[in-house]
């Protein structure tokens, strides 16, 4: 099976590249904000930069927008080198964190702002018509004369969106656009954003620290750490085939056990965990005998039994999540880790309560050997 059975890569190489970072590095004084970024963004895709604050994701976005010029490397937009092209000359628009709406203008004036900057001037009637259309797209028809401060957070976000898409940019940049919204609204907006992207066919580049947001909306995700891109791939790829402990930890939840590789002759390598337990697991990347590694086991890949084979654990905590129940368990030598038990297995085995003994097991094929980093 091509690509290891994962969903078809949404960006085959022959897709048109709309933006590209080539070896881009950005320093602010002594601070290295972004280091050797290489990413090519295809027309129409939804790409996310995901990472904790200070990882350089916003810097990457700001270099695409033109607010920062790279210290080294090249930024391309639509085939042209734009390293020092000023923001107002770039065919790119941005939805700012906290929206940055103009407080002295009405909703319609905010949305029409980009059109009013065009030279030669657009006829007023045409601007009004486009503004109305944009308002409809973000479902804010009838709000044109409202003041910005009369709008709720969710509505302000729609205004910011409408203001950014009205120029029909080649690239729509979104800087943590949902950070200020409550959870429920965020969910709604995520779905709306995806709809909007399909409807408009504009390329979206999102910056977020929220893995759930990135996973649910993006075609591809760039995981960043300390100014570098650690791994790029589709959400499923990143979840199933993380190439480092950092990515496995950042995308979803995982349990990690340190150990040493002892046998690399079989497809499943043998790893002796620090507590002496010998396990089999598939490697991600190249490892040699004696190398210190960790293995990653997703909580939902672990099974909890009353009897049978496995590692004996004590149930420390139980959180009922509806479809799943999350157990925090304690192993004598492996320490604490999480087990996610599906409803069906709960029904079969009966729920465990805090203090119970249980056996934990997993299929070697569902785990991964990773770098400890």
């Amino acid at each position, binding site marked *: 099976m091509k690509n290891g059975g994962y969903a078809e890569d949404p960006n085959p190489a022959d897709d048109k590249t709309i933006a590209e970072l080539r070896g881009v590095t950005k320093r602010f004084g002594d601070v290295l904000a972004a280091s050797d970024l290489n990413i090519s963004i295809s027309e129409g895709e939804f790409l996310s930069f995901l990472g904790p604050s200070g990882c350089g994701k916003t810097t990457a976005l700001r270099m695409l*927008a*033109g*607010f920062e010029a790279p210290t080294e490397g090249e930024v391309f937009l639509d085939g042209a080198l734009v390293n020092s092209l*000023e*923001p*107002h000359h770039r065919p*790119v*628009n*941005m939805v*700012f*964190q*906290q929206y*940055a*709406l*103009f*407080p*002295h203008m009405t909703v319609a004036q905010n949305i029409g*702002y*980009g059109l009013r*900057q*065009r030279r030669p001037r657009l006829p007023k009637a045409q601007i009004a018509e486009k503004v109305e259309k944009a308002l409809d797209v973000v479902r804010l028809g009838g709000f044109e004369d409202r003041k910005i401060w009369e709008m709720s957070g969710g509505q302000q976000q729609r205004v910011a969106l409408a*203001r*950014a898409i009205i*120029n029909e940019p080649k690239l729509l940049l979104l800087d943590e656009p949902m950070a200020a919204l409550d959870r429920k609204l965020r969910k709604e907006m995520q779905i709306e954003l995806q709809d909007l992207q399909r409807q408009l066919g504009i390329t979206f580049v999102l910056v977020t620290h929220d893995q759930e947001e990135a996973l649910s909306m993006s075609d591809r995700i760039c995981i960043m750490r300390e100014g570098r891109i650690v791994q790029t791939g589709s959400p499923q790829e990143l979840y199933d085939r993380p190439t480092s402990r950092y990515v496995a930890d950042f995308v979803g939840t995982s349990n990690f056990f340190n150990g040493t590789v002892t046998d690399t002759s079989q497809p499943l390598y043998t790893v002796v965990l620090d507590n002496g337990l010998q396990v089999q697991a598939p490697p991600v990347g190249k490892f040699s005998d004696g190398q210190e590694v960790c293995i990653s086991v997703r909580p939902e890949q672990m099974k909890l039994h009353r009897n049978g084979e496995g590692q004996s654990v004590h149930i420390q905590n139980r959180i009922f999540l509806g479809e799943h129940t999350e157990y925090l368990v304690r192993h004598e030598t492996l320490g604490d880790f999480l087990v996610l038990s599906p409803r069906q297995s709960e029904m079969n085995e009966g729920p465990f309560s805090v203090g119970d003994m249980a056996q934990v097991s997993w299929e070697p094929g569902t785990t991964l050997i990773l770098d400890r980093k």
Partner: protein
Amino acid sequence: MTQRTRNWLLLAPAGAWFLVMLIIPLSVVFIFSFGERAPAGGVVPAFTFEQYANLPARWTAFKNTMTLAPIGTLSALLIAYPLAYFLAVKTNPKWKTILLVLVIVPFWTSILIRSYAWIFLLGGRGIPALLEYIGLEGVRLINTPFAVLVGIIYGYLPLMVFPIYVSLDKLDKRLLEASSDLGAKPWRTFVQITLPLSIPGIATGCMLVFILLMGEYLIPALLGGGKVFFVGNALVDLFLQSRNWAFGSAVAVTLVVVMLITVTIYMRLISRLGASREDVSIM
């Protein structure tokens, strides 16, 4: 203690201050303005409009005040805005504090001393001497409206710089980025975003400077040399020299009324300009 009592108690010191220092003296002046001049100076109670009928005698003072105060305010604004903009937007935060302190430094010396310095600078051996050196002879600066204007701008500049600085400093810089991102050239961003959003600061600064200028006395006295005088100088003259308290009171009351009218019109204009709601600091 109820909330109400507590509120009144909290208001009491300021209220007492206003009553004793403002309401009572103003009422006294108001009553005096209808009186007559006592033979030995001071005032004789009466009810006559004679003093108000005499106002045209002091027309020049009103004329000077009502021209130089607005011109001074406007000039101070034109000089202060670029300075405030530079400090708030263009200056490295490291230097901001130092530069701001430099703006206040002149306040560390009395305005009297500083105005004396200007007497020298604008006087015969100052700038005119320099001008003569390059061939411009017979330029007289001291004791002219220009000298008073220079003094006014110099003295009141910091009062204009600070409110504008504050409004520009708290201006969300992302708005400027957003404007640029949407295709506005730097100049258009300034006209459409920066300037409108700094109107509260401009309004506050102009108000502060204008009100204080209307009552200005010292600068015209020193740099106008008795030739360019304000209502403030007329009042000093009437109360202290000619001891015509009744007429002085009428002039004072008229000044207050003129001020109230101008400020009201000004506020109307500003609020129409859209200096919106939350951020006009002293108005």
